[in-house]
């Protein structure tokens, strides 16, 4: 079960953060609303850090990708998207991971940092992330579910979702960092980076178009939902994905409670398909077993074959 971060861990995290920021890298612009082009796996590739201290692992993973400065330019406004779906163990992004990311963004010179969500305050309180946000003095923007708060984003070549409805507040930021937890999901057996973007899309659209009202009688619905997830990933593009794969549920997802497993990993990368393909293995699947991962690869969103990714795995 998740361990609370202690004073000693804070100190270690701080030291690791300092080391990380010394690495640095090229500054990229990742405008959420910019015209989208399929990203290559990138020179950074895929970073996987195994260990027991989630904050230090997070810092190390980003360091392997060139440091947060490679993604957050000085003065940038950064939006964060952790998963706060439930407070059950293994179902939400750990507070120490969010804290480490916030600290790295600050050290990279971010001018503004905020978590965005259309989920309510109880979710943030229950997951312990509200406390981190308060401690770190960053913003928490809770977006009401009304249509007016979402912006239509057409998706060219969509297989199932011709138009996303992305929360307008996202476009107040220069980039966003996707912070999902990977876990079981009763809808499609797996959730990770690609599906977490549903947290930016209108919940009304998520319900009505991803999960169609007639889904029980519609024979293609599971595939439909997976196509919608891939389509959505063509509407918005995270600058970076950092996945909590430390302690996760293997059953009864996405909300739990369920069987906890401890892969003890932080998985980070730009390529969402590669990140998800790796995370799927932690739940006993191959990337090809999960429809959205397979379709994401087929539609050139990213690389499913981990042998073709610059995979850096370290233990700390």
């Amino acid at each position, binding site marked *: *079960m998740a361990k609370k971060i202690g004073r000693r861990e804070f100190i270690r995290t701080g030291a690791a953060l300092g080391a990380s920021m010394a690495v640095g890298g090229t500054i990229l612009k990742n405008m959420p609303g910019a015209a989208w082009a399929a990203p290559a796996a990138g020179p950074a590739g895929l970073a996987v850090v195994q260990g027991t201290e989630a904050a230090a692992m997070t810092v190390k993973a980003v360091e392997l990708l060139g440091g947060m400065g490679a993604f957050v330019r000085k003065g940038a406004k950064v939006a964060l998207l952790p998963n706060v*779906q*439930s*407070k*059950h*163990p293994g179902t939400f992004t750990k507070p120490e991971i969010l804290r480490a990311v916030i600290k790295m963004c600050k050290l990279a010179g971010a001018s503004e940092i905020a978590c965005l969500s*259309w989920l*309510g*305050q*109880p979710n943030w309180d229950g997951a312990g992330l*509200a406390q981190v*946000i*308060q401690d770190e003095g*960053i*913003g*928490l*923007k*809770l*977006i*009401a579910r*009304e*249509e*007016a*708060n979402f912006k*239509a984003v057409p998706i060219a070549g969509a297989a199932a979702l011709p*138009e996303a*409805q992305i929360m*307008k*507040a996202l476009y107040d930021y220069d980039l966003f960092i996707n912070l999902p937890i990977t876990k079981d*999901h*009763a*809808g499609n*057996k797996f*959730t990770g980076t690609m*599906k977490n973007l*549903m947290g930016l899309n209108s*919940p009304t*659209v*998520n*319900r009505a178009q991803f*999960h169609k009202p007639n*889904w*029980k*009688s*519609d*024979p*293609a619905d*599971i*595939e439909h939902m997976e196509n919608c997830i891939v389509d959505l990933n063509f509407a918005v593009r995270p600058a970076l994905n950092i996945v909590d794969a430390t302690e996760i549920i293997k*059953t*009864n*997802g*996405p*909300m*739990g*409670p369920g*069987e*906890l497993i401890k892969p003890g990993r932080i998985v980070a990368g730009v390529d969402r398909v590669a990140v998800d393909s790796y995370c799927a293995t932690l739940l006993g699947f191959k990337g090809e*077993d999960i*429809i959205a991962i397979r379709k994401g690869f087929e539609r050139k969103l990213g690389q499913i074959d981990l042998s073709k990714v610059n995979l850096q795995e370290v233990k700390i």
Partner: protein
Amino acid sequence: MRKSGSTLAALLIAVGLSIGSHPTQTTPPSASARDLTLLVPRAPEIPGWSARGDAQRFSGDDLYVYIDGGAEIYNEYGFRQVLAQDFVDKNQKGVTLEIYEMTDPTAAFGIFSFKASGKGRLADIGADSEFEDYYLHFWKGPFLVTVTGFEANPECRDGVTAIARATGARIHETSGRPAFLSKLPADWIKPGLKYLRGPLGLYNLHPFFTRDVLKFQEAAVVSLEDARVFVFSYPNPAEALARLSETRQVMAADPAYRNVREFPDGHFEAVDLKGNALYARVDGSVIGLVLSPKAIAIGVDLLKRLRS
């Protein structure tokens, strides 16, 4: 999609933690639903524990608000409303009680079977119960109850048990398992059995197809030593035969299956991509299907045990 002009007014932005309001977490239950607050145990019934904060309640489609992305499986079984209430002890250790009212006892048994692993210990609460590492599920009448402890220590485990037991005592409705299960041999009715009502549950247990090819009314899945047995129920034998035929045809055209071979009386065998032998046949109004890493003969023998 329609747009409103009052963007700024509707956009709720809070910087830091100075949040004035947020999306509602409580929806009124439907008129037909029971008052679930009556099932929440009070302090005298759970010594050392007390409710913290107000209960959250969601009904009907608003289950999506409570379990975004995870509501579909509840709806497949038949969901009516849910109540969630937090409890704490004097050391502020936390336990959460969730009471799901399903549309009928069969739905409650089904979602219980879907969520329970079959590996936990029996807790002797309600009709069936299972205590897993840090949480407990039981079902009784039309209710599924899940109690979760947020720390893996004896105090939380005791709290989980006490709150579950007190909740169970407040539920007076009782009922048996689905009648359909009588078609199975008695020794197959054991913890870990899954009772299904639709394609999503089946897809999560075994993704035969991404389409709903089998179109069953009810199903049971039993994991045995050398095989997994799926029993699908239909309104009549003709429908079962038609579904078996379509299943065979779809498998024959699907690259995920090979060596699909039909026999004169309609039963068939195949091999999946992982090398599992698959054997399926109709018995009255049910289709029996066995998946085994071993020989087809195992499936043939197992399905002889079904009661048509």
